[in-house]
């Protein structure tokens, strides 16, 4: 856990906080009324994390679908290799919601054209129905 300082303490000790983070490998969380607002980490560490999350991402799962979550420093991007769908957003939750919507729209679209699907799309529809049966959340 990072040391926690209040906004007023951080303001007073900003120079020290910056030096400790930049040269002392420390990280600080700044809170207001007990709620964490920001975490201060070295810029090089932030850049390394963004590079890692942009290039490799993190494996996760949304609505039973294995996904990769990436962060570019400006936006979150969630994608899967099963249906090749994606979602994006300024926040992780916004990207998750966008991905959920993409899955729901995809399912509805395939259902609407169920009698006229190319084989790979028909297979996707079978998989989506199975996911719904398994999780009952789609």
């Amino acid at each position, binding site marked *: 856990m990072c040391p926690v300082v209040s906004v007023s303490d951080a303001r007073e000790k900003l120079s020290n906080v910056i030096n400790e983070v930049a040269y002392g490998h420390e990280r600080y969380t700044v809170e207001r009324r007990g709620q964490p607002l920001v975490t201060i980490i070295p810029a090089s560490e932030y850049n390394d994390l963004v590079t890692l999350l942009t290039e490799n991402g993190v494996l996760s799962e949304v609505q039973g679908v294995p996904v990769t979550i*990436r962060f*570019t420093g400006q936006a979150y*991007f969630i*994608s899967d290799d099963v249906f*090749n*769908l*994606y979602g*994006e957003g300024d926040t992780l939750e916004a990207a998750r919601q*966008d991905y959920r*919507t*993409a899955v729901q*729209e*995809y399912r509805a*679209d395939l259902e609407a*054209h169920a009698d*006229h*699907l*190319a*084989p*790979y*799309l028909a297979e996707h529809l079978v998989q989506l129905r199975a996911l719904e049966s398994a999780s009952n959340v789609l």
Partner: protein
Amino acid sequence: MTTLPARKVATVLSGKFAFEVEDSHHRIYRLFLDGQLVARTFMSHGARELSDFHIQKMAQQMRLSRKEFLAAVECTLDQATYYTLIRERL
């Protein structure tokens, strides 16, 4: 990192490749060949630029490699070639 103007990609999809367009939460593009839905892709409303992430996923949704997708947008891959490729990959 490659980026493409979203408007240019949209024009290629609905124009050159004759995808049907429908607005929902996302803008959805569907391609029907021989009475079958063979490809479906989408873009966010208001998207101005497509990043590498979008390009990779849209290419997969269209049954194309990234290189073929870029060729499609840059006009070196025509409709007849795309339709031949997608029929081979169904």
